[in-house]
């Protein structure tokens, strides 16, 4: 197997020049986005350099507490990101439900894959644990953000229908079923689309990384399949938990629709 090409300083610089050319084109075309592209490039560079150093430290100082601590930090950032990316105001109770469902869904899937599917030894090995957690957490974050937005906007736009169902003796669960089903679909679509296109339209990141580092494509595919199944499991589990607890926030104990969701 050939050794991986280590990118030299000049090679990386060439990649940055590529972005500079892009910024130039954007400027000439008068698309006012050069600032955003520049900022994102600088931010990405610093974040990845920092992540690189942290990963080197974690790989050299393997310890369960350090691995778990890193996962918790990633999880907290993901939850915060869901709050930030939601296009409506979320009240405190809803925030608690988002945090709880994400934590349970993600941790259950992650530990199931680490302990049972991949059977990593020692279980806290950061070389496996952290990248897999990153993929599972990142995808769940996208899914749950879509689920949250669709539940909140759906309950608002289908308010009359939900109220009409309550008047016909529906339970709050039955009355909001259409909205929760639509929110679940919306949350799952990106994951399902990426599964459908995988291997034909694009090669997924984990697999590409492993192939680039010299792993046999067959092994890389095995890992990719395992991780994708973990992602699907985690996204659906988190979203199901969220919707199961989340719709109740729109009703009071007398099964009445709460006026404004604030």
């Amino acid at each position: 197997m050939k050794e991986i090409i280590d990118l030299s300083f000049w090679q990386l610089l060439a990649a940055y020049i590529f972005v500079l050319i892009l910024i130039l084109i954007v400027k000439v075309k008068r698309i006012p986005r050069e600032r955003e592209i520049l900022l994102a490039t600088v931010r990405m560079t610093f974040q990845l350099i920092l992540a690189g150093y942290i990963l080197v430290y974690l790989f050299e100082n393997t310890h369960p507490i350090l691995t778990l601590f890193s996962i918790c930090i990633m999880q907290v950032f993901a939850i915060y990101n869901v709050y930030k990316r939601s296009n409506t105001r979320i009240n405190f109770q809803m925030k608690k439900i988002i945090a709880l469902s994400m934590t349970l869904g993600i941790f259950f899937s992650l530990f199931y894959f680490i302990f049972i599917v991949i059977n990593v030894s020692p279980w806290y090995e950061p070389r496996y644990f952290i990248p897999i957690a990153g993929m599972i957490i990142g995808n769940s974050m996208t899914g749950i953000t879509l689920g949250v937005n669709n539940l909140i906007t759906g309950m608002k736009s289908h308010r009359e229908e939900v109220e009409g169902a309550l008047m016909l003796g529906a339970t709050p669960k039955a009355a909001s079923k259409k909205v929760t089903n639509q929110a679940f679909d919306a949350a799952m679509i990106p994951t399902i689309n990426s599964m459908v296109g995988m291997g034909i339209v694009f090669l997924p990141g984990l697999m590409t990384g492993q192939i680039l580092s010299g792993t046999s494509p067959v092994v890389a595919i095995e890992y990719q399949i395992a991780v994708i199944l973990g992602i699907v499991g985690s996204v659906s589990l988190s979203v199901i938990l969220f919707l199961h607890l989340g719709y109740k926030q729109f009703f009071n104990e007398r099964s009445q629709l709460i006026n404004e969701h604030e």
Partner: protein
Amino acid sequence: MYTLTNIKINELMKIDNLTIPEQSVTCILGPSGSGKSTLMKLLNNMITPDEGQVTYKKQPISDLDPIHLRRKSVMVPQTPVIFDGTIKENLAIGSKFSEEEPPSIEQLTGILEEFQLNKKLNDNASNLSGGEKQRLAIARALLMNPEVLMLDEPTSALDEETAEVVVHKILEYVENKGLSLIFVTHNKELAAQVADHTIDLMKYSLKKEMTTHERNH
């Protein structure tokens, strides 16, 4: 059947004492904005008053299961809600919500005919006109075999002739099945014709007081 005592809904209405008798036709009159729909929503516990108590068959509503109450005391709002699916699915949705046996095909086709809905059971319900949707919603409520039928402006989307047929049909059901009918209308003539009791909401509306107050200043 229903009694309302010392009810207050902030800035909208204040009812010291009001009784709605059983197995009778009660008509709620009042201009728009006087809280006619709000009063109905108090009766099926879609809302809870800020103060006071509502009882149904001598039991405080707050002690009853609100979902079971709404299956017995069915309200049809002025703009009826039509759910995705066919006319058949819409007619049977009440039984689906209460997890009971769905009505038979004969019952469904029979009620369509009675309410002059010249449609097939498998037609898409969203294609119906406003008036047809209103009739479908009333038929759907009747298929739930309620004790109380509450209709909010049941003939607002119907022409005079159809309105007469529909009102007649509703009254026939009410009489044959011993139901109580509570309906909101702004049509005083209709109220005088069919109601055993009328409730003039202007007596309870706080908005009226506000306008008098505003006029005086």
